[in-house]
């Protein structure tokens, strides 16, 4: 072998090494990207898998005997008397009778106390109130036997969705053997059905998983976002108009600009501290109210809106301003009549994106007391309320199994809203964006 061959050989090896390094580098890049996409898939997948069943619920259909003697023995038709009737007994008696209906128990045979308790546990704890509400709406039902469809207890729901492991020892399960056999019989007799979970969208929070809904949180989020929009949009637009069109180049303007950029990166929880100290303790705004929460969100959204609005104003070519001023408009008129309308789609896009961020924000609202167990749906901006992400946070802490799918379902609703808002922003941008 000559020297040259050795050198050639070395060179080939070196080149091969360099190329394999190149390949490895590309592999790392691909790996990083696939890893990111896998993370995203697992994140969304695990939530959908858990949450999709939260949109359905289990109901039990059974006969309720509205015994006149127990409700209104003297035929007064007085709502006060009827509302304080022995609804629990009426409900329980009808529930004990359920087993007769499906011929599991011979007529006359009496259940033991423990069996009665097990049976009642299959029904929602709210059953007696719902039966009462049905009667209060239609007093002519008193004395009749009506057929009602009420939510089953959350455990029954979870069992039928396969989330309760039957192989566990009986004591470790939320349902014992006899309850499971009853459930199976009731399913065979078409007493138990899966339906759309309308409670999820029509009710406020509840301690019972089968009764809990997100309407209260949705209304809270709506009010808070309304406040946020009403404050941050005008302020943001006005501030960006000033900074882009009128601000002199001086120190103050520089300070404002640096300030806005920094505010956009301040941790959200610090805004919560600000809200707690200023809005709640100095201005004495009502705690837990969408008003106070919305104000904090407005301060957080402001930098986002200002930054995107300024970009939108910058994109309007100077020739538009010059043409307006050439026709005798003042600077202010050229801005309000020409620049602002042209920049509006861009500003709206930024605002929607800012609002979407505000909708998903939780931490500062924790500080404002917007994580509380609130059953009533808020009616105004000063009522105590919670917001959708805070509701998710609250539910994720609940030990009861039924809340897990509720939490994931609520997350799906939240993500749905965010998706819609972002899609709207993209649509606006594509539809109105102009290339000058």
């Amino acid at each position, binding site marked *: 072998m000559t020297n040259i061959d050795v050198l050639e050989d070395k060179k080939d090896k070196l080149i091969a090494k360099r190329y394999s*390094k*190149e390949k490895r*580098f*590309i592999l*790392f*890049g*691909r790996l*990083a*990207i696939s*890893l*990111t*996409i896998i993370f*995203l898939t697992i*994140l969304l997948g*695990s*939530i959908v898998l858990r949450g999709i069943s939260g949109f359905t619920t289990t109901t039990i259909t059974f006969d309720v005997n509205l015994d006149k003697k127990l409700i209104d023995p003297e035929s007064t038709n007085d709502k006060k008397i009827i509302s304080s009737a022995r609804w629990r007994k009426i409900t329980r008696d009808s529930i004990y009778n359920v087993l007769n209906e499906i011929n599991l128990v011979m007529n006359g045979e009496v259940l033991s106390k423990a069996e009665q308790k097990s049976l009642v546990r299959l029904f929602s704890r709210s059953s007696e109130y719902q039966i009462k509400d049905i009667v209060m709406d239609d007093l002519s039902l008193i004395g009749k036997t009506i057929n009602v469809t009420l939510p089953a207890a959350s455990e029954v729901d979870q069992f039928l969705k396969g989330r309760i492991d039957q192989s566990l020892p009986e004591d470790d399960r939320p349902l014992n053997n006899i309850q499971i056999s009853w459930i199976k019989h009731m399913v065979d007799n078409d007493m138990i059905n899966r339906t759309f979970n309308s409670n999820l969208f029509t009710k406020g929070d509840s301690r019972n998983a089968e009764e809990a809904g997100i309407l209260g949180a949705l209304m809270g989020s709506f009010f808070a976002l309304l406040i946020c929009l009403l404050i941050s949009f*005008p*302020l*943001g637009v*006005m*501030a960006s108009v*000033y900074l882009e069109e*009128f601000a002199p180049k001086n120190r103050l303007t520089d300070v*404002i600009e640096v*300030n*806005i950029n*920094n*505010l956009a*990166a*301040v*941790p*959200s*929880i*610090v805004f919560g*501290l*600000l809200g707690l*100290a200023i809005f709640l*303790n100095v201005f004495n705004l009502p705690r837990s109210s969408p008003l106070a929460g919305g104000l904090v969100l407005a*301060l957080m959204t*402001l930098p986002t809106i*200002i930054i995107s609005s300024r970009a939108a104003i910058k994109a309007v070519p100077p020739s538009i301003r010059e043409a307006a001023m050439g026709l005798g408009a*003042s600077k202010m008129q050229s801005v309000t009549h020409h620049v602002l309308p042209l920049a509006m789609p861009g500003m709206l896009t930024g605002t929607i994106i800012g609002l*979407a961020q505000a909708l*998903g*924000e*939780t*931490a500062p609202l*924790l*500080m404002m007391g917007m*994580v509380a167990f609130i059953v009533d749906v808020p009616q105004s901006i000063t009522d105590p309320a919670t917001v959708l*992400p805070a509701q*998710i*946070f609250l539910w*994720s802490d609940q030990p009861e199994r039924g809340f*897990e799918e509720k*939490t*994931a379902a609520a*997350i799906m609703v*939240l993500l749905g809203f*965010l998706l819609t808002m972002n899609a709207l922003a993209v649509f606006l941008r594509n539809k109105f964006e102009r290339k000058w």
Partner: protein
Amino acid sequence: MFDISLYFIFLLGLSSYYIGKNRAKKNINLITETGGLESHYGMYLVIWTILPAFIFYLIWSVISNYLIKEATLGSIPNDLLPNNLSMQKLFLDSIIVVAKGGSSLSKVPEISVAFYQNFAFYSTLGKSISTISISLISFFIFYKKIDSNVRAKNFLERIILVFLFISSIIAIMTTVGIILSLIVETTKFFQDVTIFEYFFGLLWSPQMALREGQVAAEGSFGAVPVFAGTFLITIIAMALAGPVGLFSAIYLSEYASKNTRKIVKPTIEVLAGVPTVVYGFFAALVVGPFIRRTSESFGLASSSESALAAGLVMGIMIIPFISSLSDDVINSVPQSLREASFGVGATKSETIKKVIIPAALPGIVAAFMLAISRAIGETMIVVMAAGLSAKLTANPLDSVTTVTVQIVTLLVGDHEFDSTKTMAAFALGMTLFAITLILNIYAIRVVKKYREKYD
């Protein structure tokens, strides 16, 4: 809050628009001489009708609100007045509740209630009458002024400019508000706890203050374990997000085809749009239990709340920050540098490693710093997945606590606002704000400088 005088000035303002406009129409010379429009005169009159009266209304409200409390406090018979200042405030609050027609548990002196009601009545009456008269007077004065060829347009534009300026000041006011509220509470905190103890103390256990003046309520406020927990979780997050984000950015900007980029970039960005509470749920219910099961199968003790779970999920959350910021930076490295490197025979990866990364380094460092500041300030993931106990540990499978978790646990729920516990939360907030501010200012400055360098 909205009483009749506000409705009045609002209605008067509304009608004054048309009145002003008509007035301007009749004055033929006005428009040609001043260069304004008729509507400018309408708005001119509206502003003068509403603004002074409204400002007067606000000032009166604030002052009377302060005076009424002081005066009512003075009206309380001496033998009933509590000694303690915060008790006085509570007592006053219950008097106000009773005066407004509510009921209170504690017995309140009727003389003060009557005094409060009287004061409130006359104050509101005086406020309404003077607001309405101010509004009327300034309406008539400036209605007359329209005749004397006043330049309404210039005036209007100056007013608008003032409003524009004020709204751009709001951003500064927010920062000032943040700093003030943090500083006030933090200085109070450092009257109870020494600065040395806070920054170097090894025990963090803020006790629940069950009763006022309870001796056992004095907690221990050494923040080192809290900082250590924050640090541990941030390191875990950056260990995941740093390489993954950087390599994604490099691949997307240097190797990927246009079509791949078009699909993959928005997909990664979806991660940035997912609310943090969703990541928290994911960490607490999916990653946490998974890590516990895995480590138990290796025979390692682990709790379901672990620094690893919170850190990894936080890492996933900040991948898009690093990747999109680094992507921008790498893209702004001039093409000529790449071509020069290819020209001397370097492969693509060699060009990236030896030329592009060094050229983009300041920007990449800035991106990392922004990501770190994001990780330090992130709240929901750690609240839901990291735990509450302040332990000084480097074991990622152990549960640790962070600055943000402590702020939340100290402040959520009802307790007295002025206890050391709540002030400790503000001290932590101050620390957090200072650290993130330094990181942000530095990063923003570097990015700005960097852009100028290559533009």
